[in-house]
Structure formats: C-alpha cells, structure tokens
C-alpha cells in the first residue's frame, strides 16, 4: 500500500475508524465502477458523513499532495471512480439524505449519495418527480448524476441533468466550501453551477445539490412499434421529430437485443422484429392523444410491422422493464462487450446505423444496439469473447471506428456517460489544443494542486497505464446503459 500509515491515522482522526476502509477485502469492493477495463482496489476508502469532514479531507490531501477520487454508487461507465495508487477514494454513500423538499418552489435539496429514484418516490405523492432518469436510476446517486451530467431516456424532452440543477454546495480542490446557485434563479456572476455540473469529480466534491422538481404530467402514453429492420425504424425516428413532436422518450432496440430481452426479462417485445421503437409521450391528455395518432401514422408510413399502445400501467411498466434492464441481459449474448456512448446529429441516425452494421461485419463481430434514438445518442455494444485470440483487439478497433464515424458526422464523444478515464484520450478527437487548454486552465482554478480525480476527463495527464492498473476485461456482474 502506497499510502503512509501516518496519513491513515489522520484520516481516521477525521472520520473515525468506522469511516475508513483499509482492509484488502473492504477495498476490493471499490476496485472498479461499471467500466471494468481497468480495475484496482484503492489504497483507502473513506466515507464522510458531513460537509465539514469533506473539507478536512480535502485540506489534508492537499497538504499531503494525495489524490482524491469521489465515488457515488459506482454505476459509472467511464472508469471515473478509479483511484490511482496512493490516492484516497471518497465514497459519498453515507451522505444520502433529502435535506429539504420545497414543493412551492418546485425544488429539493439533497445530499450527493441520495439514490436518484428515491427522490421521485419521495415526491410522487405530492405530484412531483425528478426528471433525469439514467437507466441505473434505482441505484445511481444524484451526486454521481450531477458529477457526470448523466442522462437517460427522458432527456429527449426534459434535457440533461444540468438543466435540472439549480444550486450546489461544493468543496473545491482548494478546500473551500463554495455555495452557488439556489432556489432563486439568475444569480449575478458567472454560472458556476452550470459549469460545475459534469465536472466528474475533477473540480471538487459535491456535498449538497438543489434540483428542480417537475410536476407529474397529466397523462402518459407508451407505444411500441416494430420494424423489419433498423433502417426503417431510424427513418421513422427522424420523421417523428421532423413532424415537430418531441416525445418524452424515443428509444431504439435492435433485433439482437429484442431477442435477449424477451428471453431474459420476458418483456414480450414482438418476436422476430428487426428493430423496436419504444416511444413515450407525456403531457395534457388531448396533446398526447393527438401526438400518438400522428406517431402511429408515421410508423405505418415507414412500414411498421406492429404498433402497440400500452393499455395500462402494468403493460407500460413491462415495456420499460425490457428497456431499462437491457444491459443486464448482455451476458446472454456474449461473455464480454465494449459499450460505446457517442452521439450523432439525429438526422444522421439512419446513416450511422448502417455504418454500425458495416463496422461489425468488417470486424466479424456482432454489435448489438439499444439506445436513445431521439437524441442521436448511440450505445452500440460490441460483443466479443476474450477467450478467442484477437477478438478483444478487433472489438477495440471497431469501437474506435464507431467513435470516429460519429465524430465525422458532427457528433460528440459522449452523450451521457461522461469522459472519465475511458475517454480522456479521445478528447482530442473532438476538441483542439486551444479548447483543451482552456478546460485545463478552468480545472486549475478549482483545483490548483491537481489533486481532484487526476487522469480523468482531460488527456493531459500522461501514463494512465502506470497510474491505473489495467486488468483483463471480464464479464460485468450487470450494468445499465
């Protein structure tokens, strides 16, 4: 262990012995997030319960030049919660309380470790919910969501997490408590709230988050449309949006996934479909009725094989269960997989999906797809078997080609998972030197000594391979996309 015993004692002084995990079996729990290419138990894990403990932690680590890595529920898909050798991992799971529900101001203030779904559960009876819904929402934390600016199916209509964060309390890498934003809108000065969301733990540790609550819509309507192939389904997506309809969610599930989901989850998606669209509308009853009618017509015009409208809440829940648990069934298809998270302008969807198929064929690999089609946010899953010589290499090449193809169409490196360790080296594909330099300087303003989550988000930190211990990829225990 690279961490000194003296530092360990000081950590225990701040957090108490119960707030410090230093045994091997204890640390093993934290060896990776859901991105399993890199693994390695952190030297120590600390579990603060108060903001003042977090401040003491940061000040101590700053004094000792020790890296700090925040971690929520560990559902990240980018290796963002990997601690370098000699670093301290800060698990925020104990800071999981709702600090205030304020329906009159349509907002809530929560601690970072609060599970996303708990907030909607706590507010639903009063008629409210928290819109950002990453598919891992039953386990992912709001602090993690805000740190990675995580998305989800309902981003299509309601925007990503940053659009729902009103204020933050942050302990910056400089060890100061920064309170920005809040219940009132439009605070004079720079929009630090907006710029801190998505910081991936490189700027500071979030200790409280004020989020917008939305009123539960009057009605909701969930439709499923099946197609013979992914091509007409992609065209239908473009046509729906071109018709001026922004559904609450518009998700694509390809043939490979339809089969696996039906077998694994029993979602009852149409057998033999080449592609399925899951479309959800919400809003005033008259609005969703009219829009549903248009969507049915558009799907028919694009040769839909079958169109179903969920008749009750149970049927709707089942349709969503298939989608939300999709990644959990990947194991039925393949021992290993690489998950891409790039974005294309949505008008390029039909084109990029043809490219995805072509790349798979070229590398003799199956690429399965379940993703946020309305946003153009792709999630090709490249299936491979690491016991077969050369397959991992081919999978990595295919993954790289996919990313480059998306960027060539004017897309983005990541739509909702973030950059983390996984994509730090891909940043120069989307940004030039001046752009990355600006971001690096921005980071330094908050973290002058470079102790906050080093090696993540920006490519400037060399030798990630030395800082982090890569391991042979293996089958994840389950994941969400």
């Amino acid at each position: 262990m690279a961490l000194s015993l003296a530092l360990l004692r000081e950590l225990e002084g701040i957090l108490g012995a119960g707030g410090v995990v230093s045994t091997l079996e204890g640390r093993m729990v934290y060896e990776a997030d859901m991105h399993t290419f890199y693994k390695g138990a952190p030297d120590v894990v600390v579990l603060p319960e108060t903001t003042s403990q977090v401040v003491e932690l940061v000040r101590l680590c700053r004094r000792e030049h020790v890296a700090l890595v925040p971690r929520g529920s560990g559902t990240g898909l980018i290796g963002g919660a990997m601690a370098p050798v000699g670093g301290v991992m800060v698990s925020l799971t104990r800071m999981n309380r709702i600090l205030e529900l304020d329906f009159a101001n349509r907002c809530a203030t929560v601690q970072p470790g609060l599970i996303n779904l708990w907030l909607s559960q706590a507010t639903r009876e009063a008629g409210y919910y928290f819109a950002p819904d990453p598919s891992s929402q039953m386990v992912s934390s709001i602090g993690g969501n805000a740190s990675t600016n995580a998305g989800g199916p309902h981003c299509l209509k309601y925007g990503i997490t940053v659009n729902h964060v009103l204020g933050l309390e942050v302990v910056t890498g400089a060890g100061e408590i920064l309170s920005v934003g809040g219940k009132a809108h439009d605070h004079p000065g720079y929009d630090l709230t907006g710029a801190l969301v998505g910081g991936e733990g490189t700027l500071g540790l979030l200790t409280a988050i004020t989020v917008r609550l939305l009123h539960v819509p009057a009605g909701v309507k969930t439709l499923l449309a099946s197609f013979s192939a992914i091509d007409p389904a992609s065209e239908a997506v473009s046509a729906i949006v071109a018709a001026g309809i922004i559904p609450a969610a518009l998700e694509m599930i390809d043939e490979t996934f339809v089969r696996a989901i039906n077998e694994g989850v029993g979602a009852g998606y149409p057998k033999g479909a080449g592609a399925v669209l899951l479309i959800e509308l919400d809003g005033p009853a008259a609005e969703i009725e009219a829009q549903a009618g248009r969507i049915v017509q558009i799907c028919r015009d694009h040769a839909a094989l079958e169109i179903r409208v969920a008749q009750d809440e149970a049927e709707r829940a089942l349709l969503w269960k298939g989608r939300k648990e999709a990644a959990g069934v990947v194991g039925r298809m393949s021992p290993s997989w690489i998950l891409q998270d790039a974005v294309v302008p949505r008008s390029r969807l039909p084109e990029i999906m043809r490219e995805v198929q072509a790349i798979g064929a070229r590398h003799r690999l199956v690429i399965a797809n379940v993703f946020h089609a309305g946003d153009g946010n792709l999630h090709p899953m490249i299936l491979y078997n690491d016991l077969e010589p050369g397959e991992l290499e081919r999978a990595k090449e295919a993954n790289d080609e996919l990313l480059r193809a998306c960027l060539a169409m004017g897309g983005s490196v990541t739509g909702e998972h973030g950059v983390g360790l996984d994509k730090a080296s891909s940043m120069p594909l989307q940004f030039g030197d001046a752009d990355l330099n600006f971001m690096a300087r921005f980071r330094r303003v908050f973290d002058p000594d470079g102790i906050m989550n080093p090696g993540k988000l920006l490519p400037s930190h060399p030798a990630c391979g030395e800082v982090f211990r890569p391991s042979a990829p293996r089958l994840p225990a389950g994941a969400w996309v």
Partner: protein
Amino acid sequence: MAVSAPALGDAFAAIVGGEHLTTAPSQLAAAAVDGVTPRWLARPGSLDEVSRVMALASAEGLAVAPRGGGSALDLGTPPLRLDAVLDLSRLAGILEYVPADMVATVQAGVTLDALDRELGKHGQMLALDPYGGGSRTVGGVLATNASGQRRFRYGTGRDLLLGARFVQADGTVTWGGSKVVKSVTGYDIPKLLTGSLGTLGVIVEAALRLHPVQPASGSWLFSFTSREAAGALVVAVLASSLEPERLAWLNAAVLGLVGSERGEAALAVSVATVAEAVTSQGAELGSMASRLGARVSALDPAFWTRMGGALASSTVVKLASEIRRLPFWAGEVERVISRHGLTVSLVGEAGNGILRAAVEGSVSPDTWAREIVAPLREALAAEGGSLVVERAPLYLKSAADVWGPVPETALAVMRRLKAEFDPGGVLNPGRFVGGL
C-alpha cells in the same frame, strides 16, 4: 512596445478594413458605454478578424467592449477603461441549420428576428424571447443571459446554448460544447460564457437548441382585485399538471399600458400545444382562475410583444426571489418605490421568481441608493435572492452598485477565473460583478 494611437488605428484598419473602423468623434460618442467613449469602433467581418483585433488589443493592453445590437449596453457597471468597441453586427450569418436536428449554428451578430424568419420556414424557433425585441442579437442575448416569458417552459440561454466558438482576450479562438442536443463531453464551457458579459471571451458563433413551433396556442389575461388572489393562481397553476408556455405577472400600471382592464394584479398566461389541448388547458385555467375571483379575457398573440414595451424605461430593476415569494416581492417593490413618487411597471416571470420593475419619475441618487436599492437588495439577499439594476442613468449607477454583492467564496473563484483567462483586463474591465 507601445504603439502610437494613429499607428494602432492603422493596425486595426488593416485587420477589419478602413471602412469598418470608425474614428469619427460623433460616431464614437454614440458608441460610448455609460459615458466612456472609445477610441475606435471596429466591425470585424470574420472570426479571424475578431481574433486578430483581440490579439492586438491584448498585446497593447487596450480595453475592449464587445457589442451586438447595442440594446443591452446599459447592463453593468461603467467600464474602468475603454479603448475599442468591438461591434459584431457584421457577423450575422446562419452557418449550419439542419431542421431535422433542431440545431442551428449561427454567428453572434444574427438578430433574433432574422433567425426567427429562417427557422419559421421550417416550423421551428429559438425559444428565447428577451424584452427589447427581435433586433437583439444572439451573441448579446447569450452574453447577458437575457430571458423573457418563455423561459418557464424552455429555460434560458443557459439551457439552449449547446456549443460556442469564442475568442479569448488574447485572441485565441476556442470552442466549447458540441453541436448535438445531448453531449456531456468535457466541461460545459458554454454555461460559463452565458451571462458572463463578455468578460471571459467574445462569443462569435453559437450552436443552439431549437424547438418546434406548436400547432396552436392561446393566451388569456386573468386580472384580480388583490395581489394575494393573483398569487394564489400562480400557486394553483404550479401545483397542477398544466403546462403553460408563459406565466406573466403584471401589475396595475402594466395593465393600463397594454390597454387592458383594470385590476390590482394580473396573470397573462399562454399555452402552446395541439389545438385540442389548448382548448382543454384554457378551460381548466379559466375555471381555476374564476374560482379565485379573476376576470378572464382572451388575449391576442401580439399582446406578448406589446407587454415588453412596459419595460421600455431608462431605469429597470430585476429582482430574483424564490418562486413562492414573487407575489410578496411584487407588493414590496411597488410599496418601496412608489413611496418616492415614482411609478412602477412590474412584469414578472411568475414561474421562475423573476420580477422586473420599470421605474418612471425623478429620484435623487441618495434616495435611490439608500431607500430603494439597499433595503430591497438586503431583504432579498437574506432569502437567497438578488437585485440587479439592469438599466439606469449614470447618476443612479454611480450611487449604488448595479450588481450587488456576490458571496465572498464564489467571488473569489470568479476573480480567479477572470485572472486566468483575462489577466490583463482586456475584456470589459470593471463592468461585471465585484468589479471584474
């Protein structure tokens, strides 16, 4: 090495072209910012020219004020220094627009009207409707984070700016964000730029999220004999599943200006969706309001443009409070201001806790500072709100800080940001919060 003023003028002219550089005193006087007259007014015609102007200004230690349509030049503290006004109005092109993507990349100088005309052909819009109208430029609206009534449904520039190409103080051309509706790649630099009053960089190009124009819309006015009843309707609407597009708070003075019936306070509400839902939501709103004693009348769509005229005063104050406190502050601001013989027109974004007060009449700087700005600002700040003087004559600006205090820790971070990206104080020195 310092260059003489005529030589600098020649250098600017060499960049933008002599016909796009103004040194005529009368025109420079018209380009003054809060009475501070620049030495040059430069109108660059390309990104590269903006970059070269900034590089030169930076090398020579000059102060530059970027401007779009010039309608928000009143915002901010008078500049500490001003050598060149950088007018972006020639950069008014729509660079990329694929309707199916609902994203447009435009140059900063394009006006809201010009953009609206183009987007309207495809049934789309940029959902920013700041007061002051369509002659405002995209760059100016973003740099000032100006917003209007549609923010209730669509958010502000903060939520609609996906990507930005900007020029740093030293002339470095930089891009932040993306051109797709969903991206979390790197720090959200567009958020940092939105509302920064051009103090960190000059926005030259913006990738914007668009929305479809809804097939139908309806607008209604609900006027009340008491402020409390109007407040109760706000509460009722926010606690319902109604999805209005705009929820405007108006006081009696504004009702008079827009030619509507009298009342103590009123809410103007619009709904935009399919025709059937406009009808049903309108009916629900109507019965909700009637139960609270409102007089209901239908509004024509032009009302929303007319209403902005209520804020066309030389003195405008913006208050931000908690949403639920807006009715209280509406009463409070009227009481505090009208006590001094001034008239107050109030327009509020009732679903966001934002109120703007347009003040007419004469007031001494001392009264302004001590009896109007300070007490309102202190009471608002105690609740986490703020008061910004968006527009005021110089004699009032010099009496009370237009921005008000920013919490010390946050201000320290803002100072470090400014020092990092504009160490020489080239961009709008002194005009932003805390003298940034």
